[in-house]
C-alpha cells in the first residue's frame, strides 16, 4: 500500500534517528568489554568516562532505540492492517516529544551530568534535564496508543464479525502494557525525582522509587520483545515458506503478556530490603506464569518452521531444519529472525534461572545478568529491530539493499558474537564477577591490590564476543547507510509479508475483545503490587538527600 508523505516521513525519522545514535551505543558496548578485560586500566578513553558511556549504552540501546522503533513499527503495522492512517498532527506531536526528550537526555549524558546508568537509582542524582528528557520520551511514546485505539474502534464498527488482525492485537496489547507500566515510572520521575533534583524537595524514599522503577522495569522488557513477537507470529512463517501453526495460540500468548508482564517486577528486587519474603515469593511464581506465553510461542513457531520445511520438501524428523532459507539474500528478514530465535532459547532458559527465587542469590547483579539479557534484548529484540528497520527504510524509500550478501550474513555474525560474549559474562557471573564495574581499574589490574585473576578468562571471552558483535554492527551500518544513500530505485511502498494460519479457528468473542483482559490485568496488578507498596511504606526508614557520583558528601553541587 502507499503511505501518505507525512506518515512515511514520521516513520523514517523514527528509524533513522535511533539507528544513528546506535553508532555511539555500540561503540561504548565494545569499549566496556575492553575496559573490563583489563586491556586498559583507565577511567575514561576518548573523553568518555566508563560509567558515562555505560549510561549512554543503556539509554540509547535499551530505551531510545526500542521506543522509537516500537512507535515506528506500530504506525506501519496499524496502517497496513487497518488500511487507515493515524491523525497527522497527533503523530507529529508524538515524534516531537520523543525527539526533544532524547536530545535533553543526550545533552545531560554527553556533558557528564547524568552518569547514573539507565536505571537512574536515587539517591544518585542526575541533571534535571535527564529526568525531564526521559519523561518526554515516555509521554511521546504514549500518544500513538490513543490514536491507534481510536482507529481500531472505527474498524471494529465496520467489521463486527471479523477477528482483529493478530498484528493489530499485538500492537495494542504492547502499548497498553507500556502505558500502564510507565505510569509508575512517570510518577517516580516527575513527582519524586525531578523536584528533588531541582532542590525543591529535600529527600526521596529510595525503596519506593526502586519499587516504582521495577513496576515499569520488567514490563519494559516485554515492550522491547513484543514487536519482535508480532514479527515472529505474522511475518516469520510466511518468509520461511509456511503457515502459522495456530492463530489462537498467538492471541492467547499476547493476552497472557497483557496480564502478567507487569505484576512480576519484584523479581528484580529479591536481594532488597523493605520488601517481605512472602511478597517476593508470590511474584516469583507469577514470573513463572509469564514464561508460559513464551513457551507457547516457542512451540508454535517451531511447529510453523517445521511445516515450512516440509513444504520445501524436507524428509525425516529433523530434515526441515536443513531446508529453511537461511542465506536467501532476497529474504533476509528470515535470517534476522531465526538468529534472534536461536539466541532467545538461551535467553529464555537463563531468564527462568533469574526468576527462581533463591537462585537469584547466585546471580543477582553479577555479570550473569548482562549475559542473560544480551541473549534477549540484544538477541531477538535487537535483530528484529535492525532487520525490520532496514526493511521498512528500503521499502518506504524504494531503495535496493546495498551489499545484500553482507546484509544476510550480519545476523549470523551477531549470533556468534553474542553467544561468545554471553558465555564469558555468565561464566564470570557464577564466579562473582560484578556487572556495571570498570574492572580494568582494580580487579583486572595486576598491579592493584584487589587484582582477581579468576576473572581474566571470562572477561577476555566477553571481549572476543564484543569484537565480533561490533564487527557485525559495523557491517550493518555500512549496509543500512549504503542503502539509504543508494541511487538504485525500485517502487516505494509499504508491504509486509502476510502469514495465514494452519489451524485457523472461528472467531471467539473472548479472544477478540480487550475488555475482559483489561479487567483481569488490573486485578492481578493490584493483588501483586498492593502488598509490595505496603511493605515498602511500612519498613522504610528516612528518605535520602542527593548524592553526586563523584562526591560522598550529601547535597553537593
Amino acid at each position, binding site marked *: 500500500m502507499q503511505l501518505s508523505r507525512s506518515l512515511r516521513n514520521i516513520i523514517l525519522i523514527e528509524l533513522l534517528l535511533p539507528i544513528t545514535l546506535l553508532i555511539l551505543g555500540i561503540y561504548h558496548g565494545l569499549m566496556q568489554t575492553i575496559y573490563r578485560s583489563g586491556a586498559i586500566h583507565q577511567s575514561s578513553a576518548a573523553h568518555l568516562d566508563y*560509567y558515562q558511556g555505560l549510561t549512554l549504552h543503556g539509554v540509547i540501546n535499551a530505551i531510545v532505540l526500542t521506543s522509537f522503533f516500537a512507535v515506528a513499527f506500530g504506525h506501519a503495522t496499524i496502517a497496513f492492517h487497518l488500511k487507515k492512517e493515524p491523525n497527522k498532527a497527533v503523530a507529529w506531536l508524538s515524534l516531537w516529544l520523543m525527539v526533544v526528550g532524547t536530545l535533553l537526555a543526550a545533552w545531560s549524558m554527553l556533558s557528564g551530568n547524568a552518569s547514573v546508568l539507565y536505571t537512574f537509582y536515587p539517591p544518585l542524582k542526575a541533571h534535571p534535564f535527564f529526568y525531564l528528557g526521559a519523561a518526554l520520551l515516555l509521554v511521546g511514546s504514549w500518544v500513538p496508543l490513543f490514536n491507534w485505539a481510536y482507529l481500531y474502534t472505527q474498524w471494529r464498527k465496520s467489521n463486527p464479525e471479523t477477528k482483529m488482525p493478530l498484528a493489530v492485537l499485538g500492537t495494542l496489547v504492547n502499548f497498553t502494557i507500556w502505558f500502564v507500566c510507565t505510569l509508575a515510572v512517570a510518577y517516580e520521575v516527575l513527582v519524586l525525582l525531578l523536584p528533588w533534583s531541582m532542590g525543591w524537595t529535600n529527600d526521596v524514599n529510595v525503596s519506593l522509587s526502586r519499587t516504582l522503577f521495577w513496576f515499569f522495569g520488567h514490563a519494559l522488557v516485554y515492550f522491547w520483545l513484543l514487536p519482535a513477537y508480532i514479527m515472529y507470529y505474522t511475518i516469520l512463517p510466511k518468509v520461511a515458506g509456511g503457515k502459522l501453526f495456530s492463530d489462537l495460540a498467538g492471541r492467547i500468548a499476547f493476552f497472557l503478556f497483557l496480564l502478567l508482564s507487569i505484576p512480576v517486577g519484584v523479581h528484580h528486587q529479591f536481594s532488597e530490603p523493605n520488601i517481605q519474603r512472602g511478597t517476593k515469593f508470590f511474584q516469583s511464581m507469577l514470573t513463572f506464569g509469564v514464561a508460559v506465553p513464551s513457551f507457547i510461542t516457542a512451540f508454535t513457531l517451531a511447529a510453523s518452521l517445521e511445516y515450512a520445511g516440509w513444504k520445501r520438501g524436507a524428509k525425516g524428523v529433523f530434515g526441515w531444519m536443513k531446508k529453511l532459507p537461511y542465506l536467501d539474500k532476497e529474504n533476509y528478514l528470515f535470517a534476522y529472525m531465526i538468529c534472534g530465535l536461536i539466541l532467545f532459547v538461551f535467553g529464555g532458559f537463563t531468564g527462568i534461572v533469574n526468576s527462581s527465587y533463591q537462585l537469584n542469590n547466585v546471580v543477582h547483579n553479577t555479570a550473569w545478568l548482562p549475559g542473560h539479557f544480551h541473549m534477549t534484548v540484544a538477541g531477538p529484540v535487537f535483530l528484529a529491530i535492525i532487520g525490520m528497520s532496514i526493511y521498512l527504510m528500503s521499502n518506504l524509500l524504494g531503495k535496493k539493499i546495498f551489499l545484500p550478501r553482507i546484509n544476510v550474513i550480519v545476523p549470523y555474525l551477531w549470533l556468534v558474537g553474542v553467544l561468545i560474549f554471553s558465555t564469558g559474562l555468565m561464566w564470570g557471573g557464577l564466579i562473582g564477577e560484578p556487572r556495571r564495574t570498570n574492572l580494568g581499574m582494580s580487579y583486572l589490574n595486576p598491579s592493584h591490590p584487589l587484582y582477581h585473576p579468576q576473572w581474566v578468562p571470562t572477561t577476555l571471552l566477553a571481549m572476543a564476543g564484543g569484537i565480533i558483535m561490533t564487527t557485525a554492527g559495523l557491517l550493518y551500518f555500512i549496509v543500512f547507510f549504503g542503502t539509504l544513500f543508494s541511487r538504485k530505485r525500485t517502487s516505494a511502498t509499504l508491504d509486509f509479508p502476510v502469514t495465514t494460519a494452519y489451524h485457523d479457528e472461528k472467531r471467539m468473542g473472548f479472544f477478540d475483545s480487550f475488555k475482559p483482559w483489561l479487567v483481569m490485568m488490573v486485578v492481578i496488578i493490584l493483588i501483586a503490587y498492593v502488598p509490595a507498596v505496603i511493605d515498602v511504606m511500612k519498613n522504610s526508614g528516612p528518605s535520602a538527600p542527593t*548524592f553526586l557520583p563523584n562526591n560522598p558528601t550529601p547535597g553537593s553541587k
Partner: protein
Amino acid sequence: MIDKFERRVLIITGSVAMLFIFSILYAKNSRRIDVPECLPYNKSYEEPKVVKLDSNLYQVYAVAQMWQFQPAEIQVPVGSTVDFFLTSKDVVHGFEMYEKNVNMMAVYGGVNKTTVKFDRPGVYKITCHEYCGIGHQNMQSEVIVNYPSSK
C-alpha cells in the same frame, strides 16, 4: 479443537513448571535457603560493629558508604555462624560474597539480613556489585576465617 501435539507440549510444560516450583519450595522450607530477610528500619543499624554473642555465634552490622564497607575486615573462627545486617549511608550499594551465595542490596533507609555459616578457613571477599559512583570498582571488604588456634 486443540492439536494433539499442542496438548502434549502443554502437559510437559506444566510438569516441568511444577518440578521447578516444588524444588524452590523444598529449598525454602526444608533446606532453609532463602532470599535475604527484611527488617524494619532502625537508626542503630547505621553503627558498624562486630558483636560476639557466643564462641561461634557472631553478628556483623555492615554499613556501605561511598566507597567502602565498614567494618572493612571481619575476623571469625572456623565453624562460626554469622548474621549479617546491612544498610547504606548514602547511595545504593551491593554486598556480594559469591563463595557463600550471599547477595544483598544496601539501601538508604532499609535493613537487610542474612545468615552464613563458615565451615572452612579462608578469606571471603565482599564485593560491591551495584554502581555507586566513580569509586565503585574499589569497594571491597573481607571476612577472614581462621583456625581457632590462630586466634
